[in-house]
């Protein structure tokens, strides 16, 4: 079965989800959408899925060009985004996914703009959406980025759209090269998982900040069942448009 590098990102995200978690999926968030359903429906994790589509734990859905597809509520009650974000304010939102263009060594993330002047950006990014608000509030923040490089995993972001620096939550970065976890004791990023085609060295080579090595990283690989699940959920191969390998 044909696989994309994004499929490894999907698998990696799904392994980070745990029983009992309430997870929120925002707009433009294909990897986290597939990963959450995979965690719930393929791996049987007892999570509840909500999100910008405002569906309360919908039955399995097909991927469409919008991860906010309102038709997700065809077989689910509606739970509005304001309610979901109120959970975040109460410390009851367990997992939030964000897709920043830049992430730095202090857990600062940038989805606002590339350049050094907010009022005169070199590249205007889509905007942080919930980032500033929710990155410090969700118990577990999963940051995904499909272009792991020294331009995306940077020493210092161009603009701090949001930060988990003043929070005590768990923060992960999942990229096309592996999984990093932020350690609040030494305030460093630690490599937690790699794929068959990546390695600690390759991650270090492509990261602008220091990455610590654990005794042994998890190897995250795709099974045929994983691929079948992903393809079933994305019959039109929409995720191929995200492909960067």
């Amino acid at each position: 079965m044909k696989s994309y590098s994004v499929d490894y990102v999907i698998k990696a995200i799904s392994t980070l989800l745990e029983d009992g978690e309430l997870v929120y999926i925002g707009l433009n968030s294909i990897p986290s959408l597939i990963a959450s359903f995979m965690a719930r429906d393929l791996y049987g994790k007892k999570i509840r899925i909500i999100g910008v589509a405002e569906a309360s734990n919908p039955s399995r859905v097909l991927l469409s060009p919008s991860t906010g597809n309102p038709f997700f509520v065809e077989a689910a009650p509606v739970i509005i985004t304001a309610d979901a974000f109120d959970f975040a304010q109460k410390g009851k939102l367990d997992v939030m996914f964000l897709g920043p263009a830049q992430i730095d060594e202090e857990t600062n993330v940038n989805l606002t703009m590339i350049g050094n002047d907010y009022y005169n950006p070199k590249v205007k990014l889509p905007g942080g959406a919930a980032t500033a608000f929710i990155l410090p509030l969700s118990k577990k923040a999963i940051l995904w980025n499909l272009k792991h490089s020294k331009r995306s995993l940077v020493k210092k972001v161009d603009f701090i759209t949001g930060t988990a620096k003043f929070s005590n939550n768990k923060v992960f970065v999942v990229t096309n090269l592996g999984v990093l976890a932020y350690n609040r004791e030494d305030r460093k990023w630690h490599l937690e998982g790699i794929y068959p085609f990546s390695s600690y060295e390759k991650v270090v080579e492509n990261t602008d900040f220091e990455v610590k090595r654990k005794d042994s990283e998890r190897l995250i690989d795709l099974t045929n069942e994983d691929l079948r699940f992903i393809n079933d959920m994305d019959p039109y191969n929409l995720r191929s448009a995200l492909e960067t390998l």
Partner: protein
Amino acid sequence: MESKLMRMEEAVELVKNGDSVTISGISIHRNPMAFIYALVKRGVKDLYFIDREPGFGLEVLLKYGLVRKLRIAMSTLEWFSSIPRHFRKMIEEREVEMLEDTCGAFIAGIRAGSFGIPFMPVKGIIGSDLVKMHEREGTWKVIEDPFSGEKIVLVKAINPDVAIIHVNKADEEGNAEILGPLYEDEYKAKASKKVIITAEEIVPRSYFYGRRPTINGEYVTAVVHALKGAEPTSMFPYYDADYEKIIEFLEHF
């Protein structure tokens, strides 16, 4: 009963040059497109566009030069165009000014506006560079919570001049029902000085007897019958987004 029903051509006259406006829906879903196209045809300018996560409707307004300033948390067409092209180009070329918001703060501000209170606190955010922009703009303030002493962001009430909300059903008084996802549309309507409802279907008032409309007629200025009024964005449960028309729009950049 006072009827607020009017033709689209009359309703667009309610939007004035320089107005702050907010619209229903998000991304490619339930945008009040029929109204937006009518507004483009009429041609107002210098709009201050306020929203949480707009997409297609905003791109059309930007393309035809109706907008001077944005206050939004993100603009995206998702799979079609992660960073919408007019949005990106006009900000990079400084044709349009942007105050970036963040979802929780937008919700706090529009709730404060809808409740008639001057501000509302919101958690998180501290440490974001957005705080500086908003303090400069006068839209946020960081204070110490007088009960706990902890730092917290206060968001000043957001009260747009006009809200344009596309709904499934409305009566002539403006009582309106939205099926499926609601986003902040109830708050947008309650917070705005004028509220224009465009509706797939006009129903008798009795449709709402015994239950709460999504938006009460008390808030509404005008009601317009607009069948397929969200196209090419989606309208649950009647029609999905028209992907081909969206691609066609994007190809004619």
